[in-house]
């Protein structure tokens, strides 16, 4: 759905390709990043975004080359710190549509600190975490989201690092919008991007993204036609948690314990199932823990995709500017000469 004018009424006819730069895209052929790039360009066109009011800020890593391919403003910053650059930018100009592009190493390893503080402060921007569970640009070392025992150049005998759960971490930081999607489901991704953009506050999206060079097939079990219906759970607001090829399986809550039930043989109907409510922080926390790897554990709960949680909280920059305005209102515009003189002066001569 393309709209014809932006909110200020300017006729608007940009297409997805108008958001593409003339630079050659240098990701490896087959990389999941291509799909994300395309969906972001399409979404911006669909939403009627003005390129000059849109800024992409990234850190370092494969995904962080993203700004060079967007015909908007862009800053490719330093490793892990994109949230801090974006924070200063949003304070300087709250009207900009800011998109932080980052990866699992950039956001969760070297930039873990900034990740936490960005989410709790709730700057009004979109935060896209490209999670491929591997270090691509440095050639294949394990990342903070890699599974245990992973053999990589830096862990030839298997990794002993326990992986971080990005959704649970984001919820723990009191993020106001938490969602997950995947590179292989463009329609779902676009839906998530649009919802993220509509949300006022930091919109966190974890995107499962395949690195076909160093970690090919990391998310295959969730993305391939054969296994996907049984391993993934698409979260829809107000709808019961149903999955399976024929929609024959569901998730119900037994107290606080999630339980997979068979709707055909288990004696339960859809009415018995957990109905998704993305405003419920406790339930979002339980959903975040649907995290076992189905390849390793056949009884694993299905991996949820969609909006886990959303809430409204004033953004940092809005509050900062409200405070500035209120202080100017009560104290009046500052007088430089009074400021320089201070409260205690004397005369000589």
């Amino acid at each position, binding site marked *: 759905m393309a709209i014809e004018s932006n909110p200020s009424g300017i006729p608007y006819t940009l297409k997805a390709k108008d958001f593409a730069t003339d630079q050659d895209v240098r990701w490896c052929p087959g990389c999941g990043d291509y799909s994300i790039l395309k969906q972001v360009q399409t979404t911006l066109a669909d939403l009627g975004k003005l390129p000059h009011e849109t800024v992409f800020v990234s850190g370092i890593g494969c995904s962080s080359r993203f700004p060079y391919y967007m015909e908007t403003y862009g*800053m490719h910053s*330093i490793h892990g710190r994109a949230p*801090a*650059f974006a924070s200063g930018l949003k304070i300087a100009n709250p009207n900009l549509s800011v998109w932080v592009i980052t990866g699992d190493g950039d956001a969760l390893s070297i930039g873990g600190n900034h990740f936490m*503080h960005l989410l709790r402060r709730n700057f009004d921007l979109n935060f896209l975490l490209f999670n491929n569970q591997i270090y691509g640009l440095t050639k294949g070392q394990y990342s903070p989201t890699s599974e245990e025992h992973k053999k990589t150049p830096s862990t030839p005998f298997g990794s002993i690092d326990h992986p971080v759960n990005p959704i649970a971490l984001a919820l723990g930081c009191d993020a106001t919008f938490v969602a997950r999607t995947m590179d292989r489901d463009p329609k779902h991704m676009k839906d998530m991007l649009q919802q993220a953009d509509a949300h006022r506050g930091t919109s966190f999206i974890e995107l499962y993204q395949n690195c076909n060079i160093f970690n090919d097939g990391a998310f295959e079990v969730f993305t391939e036609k054969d296994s996907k219906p049984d391993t993934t759970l698409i979260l829809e607001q107000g709808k019961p948690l149903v999955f399976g090829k024929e929609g024959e399986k569901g998730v119900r809550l037994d107290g606080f314990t999630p339980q997979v039930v068979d709707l055909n043989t288990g004696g339960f109907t859809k009415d018995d199932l957990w109905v998704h409510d993305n405003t419920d922080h406790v339930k979002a926390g339980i959903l975040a823990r649907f995290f076992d790897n189905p390849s390793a554990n056949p009884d694993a709960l299905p991996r949820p995709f969609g909006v886990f949680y959303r809430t409204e909280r004033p953004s940092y920059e809005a509050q900062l500017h409200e405070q500035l305005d209120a202080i100017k209102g009560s104290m009046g515009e500052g007088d430089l000469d009074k400021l320089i003189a201070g409260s205690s002066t004397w005369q000589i001569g």
Partner: protein
Amino acid sequence: MATQAQEKKSVIIKFAGDSGDGMQLTGGLFTDDTAFTGSDLSTFPDFPAEIRAPIGTLAGVSGFQLHFGSQRIFTPGDRFDVLVAMNAAALKSNLKMVKKGGTVILSEDGFDSKNLRLAKYEETQNPLEDDTLEGYEVLKIQVTKMTRESIGESPLGTKERDRCKNMFVLGFLLWRYSRSLDTTLKFLNAKFKSKPDILDANIKALQAGYNLADTMELASDRYTVAPAELEKGSYRSINGNDAIVLGLIVASKKLGIPLFYGSYPITPASSILHGLSKHKNFGVRTFQAEDEIAAVASAIGASYGGNLGVTGTSGPGLALKGEAMGLAVMLEMPLVVIDVQRGGPSTGLPTKTEQSDLLQAMYGRNGECPLPIVSCSRPSDCFEAAMEACRIAVQHMTPVLLLSDGYIANGAEPWRYPKASDMPEMKVEFAKQNGEANQFMPYQRDEKLARPWAIPGTPGLLHRIGGIEKEDVTGNISYDAANHEHMVKTRERKVELIANYIPEQKIESGHESGDVLLLGWGSTYGVCESVTHILTEMGHKVGHAHLRYLRPFPANLEAMMRGFKTVVIPEINNGQLVKIIRDKFLLPAVPFNKIQGTPIAHEELFEFILNLVDKG
């Protein structure tokens, strides 16, 4: 009151006590009162890194040094005329710096057996009873007892009463230097407006101390210090960090762009953050970031958005900011990084002063990463130095380092402050579309080699910037070998060209050429001035030049240095500017270094230079 006051040309007082004794406040209030009398003055607060080290210990001694007089005062002074010691530890750590025949005012209650033990006096030793204080004028006062008595009936507990001890001492000194209580009473009334019991107790203690001095035969000596011959004008007292606050705000207003200050608390830079956050009615945006890196990154982000992005820190924080400063060099983005230096390396001496970050400022980043460096020479100078750093950053599209240090940051002096309208106008313009839409060349340069400042939100200027080497003019990513060399040289040249946009180096005092040039930077200003004044009066051919611009150097610096037989560079470090001067000019500059966390004393530099000129 029959006593005839004796006139003094200058006096150095050191207030020393436990961290909890309120010596900084006492010193500060006495300084304010002194300033009103028209004396010139210089102060040096000296306190431990611990907020409250164990009471009574040597580690917990906090001091405030004040030098005031009817002549020009350049430094807080070397040796004290008067030491106020609130306990045994304060006496022990300061007595060696009292002039022979000087006055020691002691709070007797601070010398009981526990205090003596904590001050590490020998088992049987009591400095009040043995010959330790021989040769000094000693005034022993039962400060605690008399303070408690003076307060009399009051709902306050003993602990709160004892907090008024510093007011008792202040009252005593105000009488001794022929002052009234008016200024202090005004301060107390304002500070404790909502706490009448505390106000009452403080006033009673202050008056009791004042009256004691008046009646105490021992202390019948009373002194006056005539006003100094200072330039006519309006004065205020200012410390370095407060002056930086004012300089940044004035610069932002002159430039017409909002000031953004991103910072992470660190001694001794934190009070810049505190100061700026009070002035939001000037549109100042302060951001207490989660760490040093986020602080500088947020400032760069704000500059990218069209604000005047500034961050402040001290040495360890500067180390953390290095990578982001390198990015700002690549982005060619305005940014001011303030480093209020302290003793290093690592955590070092957080509350002590040092000038040991110059090499870090000059070279402490990966790659060829030049940026301009501006330094502050004394508290009031921070005002203009901060404005200059901002001007250079926005007009030359570059990060700028502003170096101050703990001594300047906390020290105060009288400042003949300007009107905002007296300060030079500063201009900055953001790029606008000029030609075909989005064919913008972000690295097209002007005559200063500065690129345009194109901020997001501007139609027609879409472009991408980043830390990867870029092609000149277009700003596109480039790994081309020749382009990289060209860009490295261009970034260097851009910084060097700033020499055409800064004033020539001047001689502060003394001769324009001759035997010895004292070439200083930063907080050695006062001691270089005082030594030069005396040596020139003695007829020696000595001059003093003080560098505000450390990179690039003023264009005439080399010629000036070559006009002297010897160039001496005094620094509170192990010899840093001297390395740079030798390297750049192949000139055998002589280092003079002190690395004790304290300013260079007049005496030691004077003797060193005298030796040189005597040898001829």
